């Protein structure tokens, strides 16, 4: 596979959220604001890059019989390290995302890429695959977060300071003034509906 194909696959053709439909639990639960989405997207992308990289480097020593426990071990280790780093350096964000950071472990997209790609390919392509898959997942998360945030509160980029520090405090934009809010969009059911519409949009664009 060429680098361009890897990127295309991750971002569009085999997008983990829109095509493979993997990792929906964090996708649906955390996408209530753009900033939450972006944070989880970054953490997931980082996990994918690191776990893909480690597994690709170790692929020649990983025996087929023990590959699954090893994948789980490597992924769990990676996620724990990311969780510790976020706890130390992005404390507020860590509090907001809560249980969903450790739950990145259960995102099937990660073990899926380990099995399908990283255990069979060289180091650099595996890193790129992790990056592409992560970015593809993140962009769906962020779009979903944006749509839900606007519909539920009439704002965008609220609490940007959690991710970008204090100078981002006034990034919040009010899209609709004095908006009473659509409760459905804030609830998990709303994210199901929004994701369904996004998948439909993706399919109609791909088939066109």
């Amino acid at each position, binding site marked *: 596979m060429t680098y361009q194909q890897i990127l295309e696959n991750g971002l569009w053709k085999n997008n983990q959220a829109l095509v493979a439909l993997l990792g929906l639990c964090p996708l649906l639960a955390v996408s*209530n604001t753009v900033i939450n989405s972006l944070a989880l997207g970054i953490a997931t992308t980082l996990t994918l890059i690191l776990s893909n990289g480690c597994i690709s480097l*170790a*692929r*020649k*020593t*990983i*025996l*087929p*019989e*023990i590959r699954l*426990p*090893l994948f789980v*071990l*490597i992924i*769990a*280790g990676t996620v*724990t*390290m990311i969780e*510790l*780093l976020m*706890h*130390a*350096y992005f*404390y507020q964000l860590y*509090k907001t995302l809560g249980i969903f950071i450790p739950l990145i472990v259960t995102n099937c997209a990660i073990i899926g890429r380990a099995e399908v790609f990283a255990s069979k390919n060289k180091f650099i392509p595996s890193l790129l695959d992790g990056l592409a898959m992560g970015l593809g997942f993140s962009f769906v998360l962020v779009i979903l977060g944006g749509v839900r945030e606007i519909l*539920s509160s009439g704002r965008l980029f609220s609490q940007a300071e959690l991710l970008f520090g204090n100078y981002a405090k006034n990034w919040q934009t009010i899209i609709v003034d004095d908006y009473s*809010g659509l*409760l459905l969009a*804030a*609830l998990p059911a709303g994210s199901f509906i929004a994701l369904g519409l996004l998948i439909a949009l993706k399919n109609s664009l791909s088939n066109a």
Partner: protein
Amino acid sequence: MPTSTPLSAAVRLACFSFIIIGLVSFVFHQTKNKIIDNEREALLQSLQSVLPKTLYDNIPSEDLITLKNHTIYRAYQKDTPVAAIIKSTTTQGYSGNIQLLTALDITGTILDVRILDHKETPGLGDKIELKKSNWILGFQHKTLAEMQQAQWAVKRDQGSFDQFTGATITPRAVVNEVKKIGLFFQQYKLQIFPQLK
């Protein structure tokens, strides 16, 4: 992939475990102090949200006792007790636990109340957060005598506290919990501040 024997599989598994454990513990030790600092800073900020810094001169986050499952932080000014901040949890909310922080002065009058954590419905029950509405400030300066009256309830229960449109259970839970804490403080005041005897 190489050929395998059970022994080589086990050895490999062990090696990988050691490497990963090593990496994780390295990161753990690097971040440990920073995480403790963060937790302390966050606790201090939440305590200061219910009790202004000017009222005391000790470090309440380090002067805490546990009594009947409540964590109590004590504030002093020149060694005279000023106020207690009580952390409590109610299970009477609409979904999950509501964790709150109540500051009371030594007469049992409420100084302020804040919600630390909850999972109430966004847009309805979450108006108990100061970020969403000023409702929680309604507890300021309420006295012990007021807590013992029948009006200490939400309007739906013939009380004086507003409920939210579409959400009665959440404010009811908070109102009842604050009263419980007020009475609890009255009952155990001398155990919390033995100096008052």
